[in-house]
């Protein structure tokens, strides 16, 4: 746990103890609602902050939790904690069923579907006798543990506060975990994270399910506090309120949800009191204006929410050297036997509309060799790379990595087969440090899941190993001393080298580099060339696209030349250099040259 967390926790604990003693009953009552609503908002913050998705129907999961709890407690007499487990599980299950097909899609689809779910749940709750139709389910008892009944606002506040703290700590664990790191990377560059083996879909689904579980937990405490659950619990306005809490608090941290919850609930209460004084006869819902305005203003002016504004005020910089670990050079690794086929490409073809970008390209790459892919601009080199690495689906043809078909699958499948790539246009994870970037490269070489990450402890040892390996990869490209700098602050050439280190952290058998030399200084080029030769000696297979033809010819064992989407030459550098078709491709077609 970091210092900022400890401070937050301390302040919060103090507030918990003091608030019910000092506040009026009405005030404490509002505080109880803030705590209840903070729980689904924490889930929503995880969903938006990590998965980059929004749920417009989080109240649906909240209501599923509340109804389940109400029914199990009042009709079946289950004890509160047992019922709560079922309530949370049911909310999570609903999310699983929705997310399973929908999280494969991008953009607004999940927002739409959750919106629909919210309305369906409201309607079902209204129409179904089992859920008590419009009147809902009542008679839910106040919780009682150890002979003590938590029935006053102050008592309930004290019961609830530790739950919220635990929820926050768990959520924080998720953010800091391997899964959180991978999803943070996905938000910066999905394609790069995928190329490092991050299964975006799976992780997003997990976060969505967890997020709904939080909403379900909120519903449990809502049911017990109100004593009655009615269809209004699934209402769209409540979903909006959760959203407002998350956004206002800030998506950068789960603590934002707590800050946001108190801000929104007290704002709500204040407007309820204040507006009728200003506008006589105004209906109760007028605080909606305030909510709407706050939402617009926050998104437009304060995209990081209250929490980030506060952190900016304090201007803390990340403590240097905070992450331990010793830097050693990259440990040599056993690759498949030299000369064995690692990459086999057959008949690869891509058409865009009427344009053929890549036309029937076949080539193979063996362990322990460097193959360069060259050709004039627009020859289809990057398109080839994209198809080989699973970024693009080929129109025809197959790709096999070490015997596994990978064409048309996601890049993370390519990575799982032991291969990765870098990108021509840098795909830096801008919100992470240099070390944080390279750690994502260890994603497949570590295994802590969401639950382990949330609990924090089991993952600690593994985390140390990840840090160590990442530092090793960084020192291999000469960036070890920059490990704690924000990645976005590095100069361009170093960012490129950092991406190479990130790819190396995966310990691939096959490495695809798209213009690794572009933007590097002379010394950096030399260093990179030496590094690549060293990796080749260890038995790694390397394919690179490069514009600097001279550099390529000096480095590569074999050169493949693409022109107008077709492979026009493939052989040792000397042979390719003298191939008339290659020279013509570079100079431009001119009859006299070709024939002469």
């Amino acid at each position, binding site marked *: 746990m970091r210092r900022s967390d400890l401070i937050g926790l301390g302040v919060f604990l103090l507030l918990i103890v003091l608030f019910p003693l000092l506040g009026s009953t009405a005030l404490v009552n509002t505080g109880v609602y803030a705590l209840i609503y903070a729980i689904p908002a924490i889930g929503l913050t995880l969903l*938006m902050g990590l998965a*980059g*998705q*929004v749920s*417009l129907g989080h109240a649906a999961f909240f209501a599923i939790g509340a109804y389940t709890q109400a029914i199990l407690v009042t009709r079946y007499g289950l004890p509160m904690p047992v019922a709560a487990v079922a309530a949370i599980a049911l909310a999570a299950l609903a999310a699983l069923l*929705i997310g399973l*097909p*929908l999280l494969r*899609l991008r*953009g*607004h*689809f999940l*927002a*739409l*579907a959750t*919106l*629909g*779910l919210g*309305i*369906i749940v409201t*309607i*079902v709750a*209204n*129409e179904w006798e089992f859920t008590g139709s419009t009147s809902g389910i009542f008679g839910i008892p106040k919780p009682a543990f150890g002979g003590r009944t938590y029935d006053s606002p102050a008592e309930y506040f004290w019961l609830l506060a530790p739950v919220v703290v635990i929820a926050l700590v768990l959520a924080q664990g998720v953010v800091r975990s391997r899964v959180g790191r991978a999803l943070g990377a996905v938000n910066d560059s999905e394609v790069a994270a995928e190329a490092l083996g991050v299964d975006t879909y799976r992780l997003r689904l997990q976060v969505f399910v967890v997020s709904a579980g939080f909403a379900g937990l909120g519903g449990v405490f809502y049911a017990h506090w109100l004593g009655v659950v009615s269809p209004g619990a699934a209402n*769209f306005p409540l979903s*909006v309120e959760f*959203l407002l809490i998350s*956004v206002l608090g800030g998506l950068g941290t789960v603590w934002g949800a707590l800050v946001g919850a108190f801000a929104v609930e007290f704002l709500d209460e204040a407007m309820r009191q204040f507006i009728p004084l200003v*506008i006589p006869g*105004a*209906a109760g*819902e*007028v*605080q*909606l*204006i305030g*909510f*709407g*305005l*706050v*939402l*617009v203003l926050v*998104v*437009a002016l304060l*995209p990081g929410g209250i929490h980030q504004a506060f952190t900016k005020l304090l201007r803390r910089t990340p403590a240097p050297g905070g992450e331990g670990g010793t830097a050693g050079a990259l440990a040599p690794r056993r690759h498949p036997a030299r000369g064995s086929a690692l990459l086999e490409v057959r008949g690869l073809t891509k058409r865009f509309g009427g344009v053929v970008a890549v036309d029937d390209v076949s080539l193979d790459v063996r362990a322990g060799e460097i193959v360069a892919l060259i050709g004039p601009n627009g020859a289809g080199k990057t398109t080839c790379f994209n198809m080989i690495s699973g970024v693009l689906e080929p129109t025809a043809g197959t790709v096999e990595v070490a015997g596994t078909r990978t064409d048309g699958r996601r890049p993370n499948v390519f990575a799982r087969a032991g291969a990765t790539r870098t990108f021509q246009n840098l795909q830096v994870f801008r919100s992470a440090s240099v070390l944080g970037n390279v750690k994502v490269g260890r994603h497949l070489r570590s295994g802590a899941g969401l639950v382990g990450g949330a609990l924090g402890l089991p993952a600690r040892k593994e985390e140390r190993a990840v840090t160590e390996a990442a530092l090793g990869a960084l020192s291999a490209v000469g960036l070890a001393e920059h490990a704690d700098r924000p990645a976005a602050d590095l100069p361009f050439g170093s960012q490129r080298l950092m991406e190479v280190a990130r790819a190396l952290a995966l310990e691939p058998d096959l490495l695809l580099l798209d213009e690794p030399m572009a933007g590097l200084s002379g010394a950096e080029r030399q260093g990179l060339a030496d590094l690549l030769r060293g990796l080749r000696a260890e038995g790694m297979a390397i394919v690179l696209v490069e514009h600097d033809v001279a550099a390529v010819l000096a480095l590569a064992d074999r050169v493949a030349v693409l022109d107008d989407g077709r492979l026009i030459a493939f052989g040792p550098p000397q042979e390719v250099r003298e191939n008339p078709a290659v020279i013509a491709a570079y100079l431009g077609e001119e009859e006299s040259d070709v024939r002469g």
Partner: protein
Amino acid sequence: MTDLIQFVVAGLAQGGAYALIAIGFVSIFTVSGVINLAQGEFAALAGLTGVSAIGAGLPLPIALAVAIVVVVAVSVATERLAIRPVKKMTTLTSIILTLGVSTVIKAAMLLIWGPQGHTMPAFTAGDLNLGGVSIRGQELWILATCALVGGAVWWFYERTLLGKALRACAEQPVAARLVGISPKNATMLAFVVAGVTGAVAGVVTSPVYSSAWDYGLTLGLKGFVAATLGGLLSIRGAIAGGLLLGVLENLVAGYVATGLRDAVAFVVLIVLLLARPGGLAKHAEARV
């Protein structure tokens, strides 16, 4: 059989309103990538403005014009004050942002018109009776108006240079700028189109469904569903999606249970998203 025809006609009328809302979603989304959740509020605002204008003694066409002007002004203000200032607009941001705008509009309507519903008098008195099938006059008005406005929007996008410029912006934003089309103006124009269609939908449906401050939510959501049914990228798809949804809802309400009417849209939505996320139309990859 009589029932069936009545349900279908009522469904088409209602679907026409959904279609107009859906057109608003599509026109804004294609040009700017913004999902405007305030679309339904545009309709509610138009209905209430229309009611007040008629109450002030204005003739119907003038009242409609007033409603359109007011809503377009609000729509343009939304674009200028809420959308344009945001530097990095993502779909996620736009959803949260326009949700805020819709809340503001809703609350303003509540302040001005109060919580109760207001109903505009039917455009013409009397119902149509054809061989035992009774059709409300206003439903015919809705159908006719929606056909007219939907057709006009379609004509705008398919036949006028300005409409084609908007499509160019949606398909190839960089090339559109290079030929001199301003993306800001295009977005603004898209909001005008959305304002007009939303306003018309709100006014013509007011005599049947009545207008109230909270009327926009479900209407907007269903318009959104209709637009998604059509793939969110095509005007024709939006119109088809709206009509389909309206008919389906009325059949379910008529034959199954009235209370389930509002669930239809969202069940259809979820089923559709599961089965064909690209919408019913074919070109799922029209905007890459």
